[in-house]
């Protein structure tokens, strides 16, 4: 592989990740809730999600996808139906839930709330990181500094910064993926009446 190919491969990965971050991640909580309503277990939801992400990676390009959320949900739905066929014994309302799904391109208030809470949750996760890691992640994610700049600023090696970013990535991934944590948070939020506004 030439240096140019390496750069291209990296650029493609970054672009795809940014596209997913913009188009899919904000709706992930909603999609997980939808799968849960169709009686899919938490582990199976994780698997389906990962499979759908794989399907996106396998595409030569995502440029043709004009409604990413609908596309992703259709892909989940397809994989789920395939699974149900394999499973043979099925709860009928599971199919009902999938079949009832319509292509709602509008973002529902539920989804909006979902992504907003996730953002707060990420903030909470960042705040709860060990001191050194928290400073690195804040500079990287909130201030938008490069790892290199952070290393110079904090007097650390770039490898050491990367290590702290790694810890941050793990923590944030866990925050996004954890549907249970989100719904718990949401219920908590509801109990406090949303009055506090944060």
């Amino acid at each position: 592989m030439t240096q140019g190919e390496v750069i291209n491969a990296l650029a493609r990965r970054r672009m795809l990740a940014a596209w997913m971050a913009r188009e899919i991640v904000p709706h992930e909580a909603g999609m997980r809730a939808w799968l849960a309503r169709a009686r899919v277990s938490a582990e199976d939801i994780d698997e389906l999600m990962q499979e759908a992400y794989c399907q996106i990676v396998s595409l030569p390009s995502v440029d043709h996808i004009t409604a990413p959320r609908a596309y992703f949900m259709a892909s989940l739905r397809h994989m789920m139906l395939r699974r149900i066929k394999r499973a043979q014994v099925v709860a009928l309302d599971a199919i009902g839930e999938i079949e009832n799904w319509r292509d709602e391109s509008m973002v529902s208030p539920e989804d909006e709330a979902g992504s907003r809470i996730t953002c707060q949750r990420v903030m909470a996760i960042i705040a709860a990181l060990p001191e050194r890691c928290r400073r690195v992640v804040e500079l990287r994610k909130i201030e938008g500094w490069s790892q290199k700049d952070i290393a110079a600023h904090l007097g650390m090696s770039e490898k050491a910064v990367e290590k702290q970013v790694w810890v941050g990535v793990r923590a944030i991934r866990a925050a996004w993926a954890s549907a249970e944590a989100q719904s718990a948070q949401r219920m908590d939020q509801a109990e406090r009446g949303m009055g506090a506004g944060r």
Partner: protein
Amino acid sequence: MTPATEHDRDMAARFVARMDGENWGEADEAELQLWLDGGAGREGLLLQVHAAWVAATPVAQEEIVEEAPAAPAFWRRRGFLGAMAASVAAVVGAGRWLDARSSFATRVGEIRRVPLADGSVMTINSGSELTVRMAKGSREIEIAQGEAWFDVAKDAARPFTVAAGKVRARAVGTAFSVRRRETVESWSEEDESLRLRLVAGERALLSDTAVVHHESDRASAVDRSLAWRSGMIDLNGTSLSEAADEFNRYNQRQIIIADPVVADEQFDGLFRINDPQGFAEAVKASLNVGIDESDPRVIRLVKSK
């Protein structure tokens, strides 16, 4: 597919952290490929972790807009992002993490009317992509592609800003339309960002090159270019090539002007947006050109024999 193990997740996070830095090289790519090939579903897991990391910041979400940019453009873009991030921080302050952000996209031929949380209404034209962010102290729309018309609810405390490329249009309570045009011109010497005030009936056409077409007194011209809101295209002395571009925005079936001689001919008429065929027939009748429909995906306007 087997579910991801804790170790797999760890590895994915490690690669994402390394890709997040500036030192990614051949050895890293080779190591990543080896890992990806080592288990089914790892590609998906990597993307999942990567996307989660990118999504965890509003600033990073702004970075996605363009294709891998060349070095000079990259720095310009960075400068602009910096300015935007700063202004967002200034207006919203500590509340920036609470912003509600949503994205909208319309397909070719689709026009969508979307009421916003603040009482404003936006009408998104065909083939457009935009992001809406409502915050306590600001209302921000970023148009990544295409055009939208805004009927803005009055709220002086929350300025309504529409950004398209490098340009931002700001209104407090009025109705206006913003269209982002992709041009191939080189970067001009214009400022990094340009602010303009719009009052009712005004139109601003914005491009990445910060060229602003600004019409205030010609309400009729505005009405005409907003004909798409009622499913029509209103051409008035428009050149044939511009008219074709206009139809091509809305229809999968594209019009190609194969005869350069007629490209600059002017054309008038009111046409249905989804009827490029009707338009082509009208052109054929009035400008004496031929129509070649041998390829069902396109309508070619050719020299008449």
